[in-house]
């Protein structure tokens, strides 16, 4: 019998203590008008915010103290993360490094890379981008063609990456490149490298998204030299490494809270006496969201115990993305307004406008809905 176990155990006391601390920090940020919740989200790049969050101790929570971290459990990080999301905090300058690149370097990087990079990540001073997709390799990651060739103690990289969020602002990319032949399963010959964006041989071309916003980029490597010490994991093991990285990437609350502030603005806009349609649909969204929070915390608990619950993690992203994708479509039916990014501070209209324009990316980034459903199907034993 196919069944899913999502333990509903309570969060540990240390996690609840961290919740109080991060709330106080976020309240002070909003009070000082350092960000406007309905206009920002976890992808919003704000280097100053990330430095303050790092100084306050909210980045690198699970990192060992030797590397500048706080040696907390994954559930503490889960609580801090969901509070950041619920507040609409602009986390783009530390999110990727904190969520996946840092942990990946900690698990598989060289000692010199760890010492050089991890303390800066924990201080919120070091931003990462993800170097996976290429112009001819999107969902089909095994088709990566950017190549690294050994030259003495260095590797020389030529090729390009695309859809690289914030490549023009980050310090490093964690890139997957080809170092050998793919082999019969197509998963061989790939290796991860840490790319220093300040080094010669890297150029960045901006790609404006549909709203005219610059987050995406194409990154070109021309005889870019990277030392051996910046290799992550062993040569040729890149496929296994990115698979693990994606398991961590896919199950977090950022997969269903991207537009949480729109839900908040919607509730306020409806007011205390909803009509039946508004009440039913609001209640439906809240019930869906509650279930997702339970699923996601439960996966975080399992990951913390060293278990990688593949299907449940993929389910969090698929169900979660469908939820956050639906929120603006429901909201616009409950309150008839014309969305706008320049509604002069009318929060609901601005939030609806911003989310409507961002929502198509929710079911694309971090693995498309279709790829995710394939992962789930494999977990169900259908592939």
């Amino acid at each position, binding site marked *: 019998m196919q069944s899913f176990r999502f333990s*509903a155990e309570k969060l540990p006391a240390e996690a609840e203590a961290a919740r109080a601390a991060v709330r106080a920090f976020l309240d002070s940020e909003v009070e000082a008008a350092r960000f406007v919740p309905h206009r920002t989200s976890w992808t919003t790049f704000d280097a100053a915010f990330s430095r303050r969050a790092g100084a306050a101790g909210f980045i690198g929570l699970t990192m060992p103290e030797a590397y500048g971290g706080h040696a907390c459990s994954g559930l503490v990080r889960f609580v801090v993360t969901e509070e950041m999301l619920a507040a609409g905090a602009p986390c783009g300058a530390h999110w990727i490094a904190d969520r996946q690149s840092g942990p990946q370097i900690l698990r598989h990087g060289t000692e010199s890379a760890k010492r050089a990079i991890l303390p800066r990540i924990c201080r919120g001073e070091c931003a990462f981008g993800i170097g996976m997709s290429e112009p001819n390799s999107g969902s089909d990651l095994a088709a990566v063609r950017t190549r690294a060739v050994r030259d003495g103690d260095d590797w020389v990289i030529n090729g390009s990456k695309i859809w690289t969020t914030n490549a023009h602002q980050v310090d490093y990319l964690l890139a997957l490149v080809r170092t050998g032949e793919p082999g019969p399963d197509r998963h061989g010959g790939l290796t991860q490298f840490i790319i220093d964006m300040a080094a010669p041989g890297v150029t960045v071309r901006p790609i404006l998204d549909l709203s005219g916003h610059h987050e995406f980029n194409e990154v070109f490597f021309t005889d870019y030299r990277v030392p051996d010490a910046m290799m992550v994991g062993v040569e040729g093991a890149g496929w296994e490494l990115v698979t693990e990285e994606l398991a961590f990437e896919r199950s977090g609350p950022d997969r269903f809270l991207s537009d949480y502030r729109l839900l908040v603005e919607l509730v*306020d806009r409806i007011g205390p006496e909803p009509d039946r349609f508004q009440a039913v649909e609001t209640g439906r969204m*809240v019930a869906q969201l*509650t279930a997702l929070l339970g699923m996601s915390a439960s996966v975080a608990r399992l990951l913390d115990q060293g278990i990688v619950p593949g299907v449940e993690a993929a389910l969090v992203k698929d*169900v979660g993305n469908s939820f956050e994708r639906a929120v603006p479509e429901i909201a616009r039916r409950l309150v008839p307004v014309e969305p706008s990014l320049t509604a002069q501070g009318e929060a609901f209209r601005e939030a609806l406008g911003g989310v409507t324009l961002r929502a198509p990316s929710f079911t694309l980034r971090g693995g498309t809905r279709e790829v995710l459903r394939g992962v789930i199907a494999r977990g169900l034993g259908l*592939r």
Partner: protein
Amino acid sequence: MNTTDHAQDGSADEVAGIVLDQFERLLAQHLSPHVLAACDGAVGGAAWPADLWRALADSGLPLALVPEAADGIGLEASTAARLIRRCGQAALPLPLPETIVGAALWAAAGGGALDGALTLVPAGSPVRITQRADGFVLDGRTAQVPWGGSVAVLLVDAIDAAGVRHLVRIRAPGTVRDTRHNLAGEPRDALDLTGCAVAAADVRTVPDWIVEGGVGSVAAAGAFARAQQMVGAMETCLASALDHVRERQQFGRPLAKFQAIQHMLAEAAGHVAAATASADLAAACWGDPRFVLATAIAKARCGEAAGHVAEICHQLHGAMGFTQEHPLHRATRRLWSWRDEFGSDALWQEWIGRAVCAGGGAALWPMLVRLRAGAG
């Protein structure tokens, strides 16, 4: 968590394992396809599987959620929820879920020991209660009472002249006005409670933790049971669909190999997973003040999932699943019934939505956090 807690967990797990194993054996022994058909009112069945009920009662399972101090088994609510899900998986044609939660509710209200099968009276037209010199008397007609004509005890929320709710045990059920069935052929009887006398010992104050926002305690307990049962029935649907698409060959390969089929199952699995998570949360809140809200969320989420899962799984089974010969209907007809019993998903969604809107946007996140925080 300290070592003492671990030890307690260990023994609780052990007891849970024993109880669940025992339930499996009883189901294997007594619940044949023949029994299921004989109990299915949709095809003229009208049986009360007395042997099975007696075996269940002898095992103590009806008192699974009653504390040991009140002569129950004292299982954790999460384990009792697994028992109730197993009832849903197996399409058990008996009010064991109602009895498990009803007996525990009665115990929580300080009532005495209960004997025999119990049912929960859904909140339809309100039942009134009036005090007399020699006890109390009820007034009201109820409809769609699960196995109302077959059980020994009914639990009902009754309202007195001052508008106060009481939890009332009825040991001599009133006249059965009419015997009807839900879509799954389970008995849903109409009872006339007018003039039904109850003793003072049968009238209890409703426990605090199960009173919120105008919801009756019996309605909340019933919604809790149906949410857990729906999880079980959805697991049955999904398992059946997975088996079917692996075996069934079309166009020269198993259905499982078609991407369209895989995506349908992934979507169904997502609904089952979300429903499970919501039902787990409700179980974790049994006995504490978050119970009604958590149950509202579980009934709403499971009810929404039920329609999607039934639709997808029927589509995957093709015409075979649309027959009496294939057992899929035992799960799907129950899903289509249970999602509307003890409050439909839309009714519970409305209740949640009104509470959320009344609190305002800023109060939503603290509410979502409180639901998962460690009061239990």
